[in-house]
């Protein structure tokens, strides 16, 4: 049905360097915004369908900084996977392959912006300056990964698919109600979710709300091609960024393995939101290189050649290639980054292993801000019960 394709289309410059969507279905996949090719070639700028020019103007230091982020984020992720394999985490949801989508969007956030992650946004969390240990309690099972979202401008992880997009929208409505849009210091909100999540009622209701209230927010969909075992075709028959057209706000597809393009597109959308221009949907076209989580076995549902094809589009390799070509760093730099990443990983590991187990009776804490007599009674009874074992062989 050709009509569906007449939605908002991202038409970047027709440079030969910019490829079509890597997983072109029937050859009519739309173009995506790309500023750095898999080979490490810089595309100077891309003009979006509404005339927005997407480009970046980073200093050498900043390019190196992005590279550092990418490497460290991947390393910490690998360390968490290793910790899980060794039984130190109950489960881990790896971001392998999605580093550019996360670092690009994470670095595009301004300090005043608020993010609502899923369970996989370890890279965004890192860019927010949050100690990577913070969510690990959830995966180790010593707590549920709780923190104060307002302190870090980063909400807690959300596991129920799509639920956080409504939270983000409500928060963004609050931003408007507080009069915090309209200028460069305006606040914007970003909601992360996956390709699978786009099927959930909640996500579509968030689109409705965001449109109606012109909410200052960015819907950032990491299309990593899979929802556990289900390929994209189980969720949509057209490119996901086009969903936005149905709700009256712009959608755009960006190469999610390109940290520069992701940065540029996210920054533009956030700035548009903070200036009161309303929501944008960004589809970051990327790939989940690993398993869905450490509990998953992707060999049951996808073939090695597909993974290999994506390997060639690695988000880190292309930045390194670019840096090398531009000669803005030497071998020492790369060695130093690797060493820093290694140190941070070791540090993370040590601190994970040192995480204290929770005390049994903390079970009853924080069910209600104002407490509950029922829980008090249960806690008391439980304490007496535990005491009854004391000194016994039990």
């Amino acid at each position, binding site marked *: 049905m050709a009509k569906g394709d007449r939605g908002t289309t991202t038409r970047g410059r027709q440079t030969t360097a910019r490829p079509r969507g890597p997983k072109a279905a029937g050859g009519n996949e739309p173009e995506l915004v790309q500023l750095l090719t898999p080979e490490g070639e810089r595309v100077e700028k891309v003009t979006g369908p509404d005339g927005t020019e997407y480009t970046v103007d980073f200093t050498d230091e900043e390019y190196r900084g992005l590279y550092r982020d990418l490497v460290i984020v991947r390393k910490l992720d690998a360390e968490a996977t290793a910790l899980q394999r060794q039984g130190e985490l109950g489960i881990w949801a790896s971001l392998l392959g999605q580093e550019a989508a996360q670092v690009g969007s994470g670095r595009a956030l301004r300090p005043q912006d608020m993010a609502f992650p899923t369970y996989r946004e370890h890279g965004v969390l890192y860019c927010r300056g949050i100690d990577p240990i913070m969510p690990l309690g959830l995966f180790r099972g010593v707590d*549920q990964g709780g923190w104060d979202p307002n302190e870090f401008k980063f909400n807690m992880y959300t596991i129920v698919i799509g639920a956080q997009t409504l939270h983000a929208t409500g928060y963004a409505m609050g931003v408007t109600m507080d009069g915090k849009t309209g200028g460069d210091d305006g606040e914007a909100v970003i909601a992360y979710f996956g390709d699978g999540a786009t099927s959930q009622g909640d996500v579509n209701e968030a689109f409705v709300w965001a449109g109606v209230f012109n909410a200052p927010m960015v819907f950032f969909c990491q299309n990593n091609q899979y929802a556990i075992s289900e390929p994209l075709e189980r969720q949509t028959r057209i490119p996901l960024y086009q969903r936005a057209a149905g709700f009256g706000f712009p959608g755009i597809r960006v190469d999610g393995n390109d940290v520069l393009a992701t940065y540029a597109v996210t920054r533009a959308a956030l700035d548009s939101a903070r200036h009161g221009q309303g929501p944008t949907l960004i589809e970051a076209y990327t790939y989940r290189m690993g398993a869905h989580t450490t509990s998953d076995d992707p060999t049951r549902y996808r073939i090695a050649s597909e993974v290999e094809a994506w390997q060639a589009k690695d988000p880190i390799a292309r930045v390194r290639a670019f840096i090398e070509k531009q000669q803005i760093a030497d071998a020492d730099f790369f060695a130093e980054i690797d060493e820093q990443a290694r140190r941070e990983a070791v540090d993370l590991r040590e601190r994970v292993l040192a995480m204290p187990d929770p005390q049994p009776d903390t079970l009853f804490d924080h069910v209600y801000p104002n407490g509950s007599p029922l829980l008090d009674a249960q806690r008391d009874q439980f304490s007496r019960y535990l005491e009854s074992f004391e000194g016994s062989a039990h």
Partner: protein
Amino acid sequence: MATETLTLGKALNTGLRRALENDPKVVIMGEDVGKLGGVFRITDGLQKDFGENRVIDTPLAESGIIGTAVGLAIRGYRPVCEIQFDGFVYPAYDQIVSQVAKMHYRSRGKVKLPIVIRIPFGGGIGAVEHHSESPEAYFAHTAGLKVVSCASPQDAYWMIQQAIASDDPIVFMEPKRRYWEKGPVELDAPLTGAYPLHSARVVRPGSDATVLAYGPMVRTALDAATAAAEDGRDLEVIDLRSLSPLDLGVVYESVRRTGRCVVVHEAPSNLGLGAEVAARITEECFYSLESPVLRVTGFDTPYPAARLEEEYLPDLDRVLDAVDRAFGW
């Protein structure tokens, strides 16, 4: 002290108005709560006086109402969400039980969600299906939520304000068929002096048997007590008020005196509030009970067509029948 005679609906409306006045962070949101003032007019006039940012007509989607309320609460607001009818709360169920109920716990106390979810509930108004449900047990079974129900205009006025002032997420069940019943309301009494939100209350002292009710059934229980008095039986009626947590101290005290207890609600019997109340009373008053706690409830059918609701709903006669059975045990 200004005491006015108000309907329960108007008392809620006045309580909401006070809450909007007292705290700029309070916002009301829901379907048709603006110009229309809600299908029951509980928010009548509020948008006009407080504006569209304080009283928000939302898109028609209950999950969206609660989900965005969570975000607003994280931002520091105190959302009061209206669900139009009991039977329309279920699309929001996931947001309520998985998000609203759990976020404080998940965050080890760092996130507070002072959200009030107002639900007009129960039958007796001759409505079509989905408009007469009693879903309170679903919420009372959900750890992390509190559930209350008001039964008189005075309680309506105070309890809605107390619920909004509380940092706990509270499901506020409004006895829709009592919206038009009138009673005295002390409008100027300070909230701090009001009867505590999560406390049951003896609304008619008696000595022969204890009748427990909440929301719309309190009136029914009181009517039954009046009728029983004519037959020489002195029933104590307790309004449970807080459905979760239950406040059963006063109930135990009563049952230990009377030895007999009947619990009344519109919701189906199976796993209704009466089950919990009966189980706990039995545990606490085991040696005082002359008969088991008996339940007078809706039947375990979907809510029936309007012309059958008189049969479905507990009424004075069914309450008295249960009292008789308790005495005949």
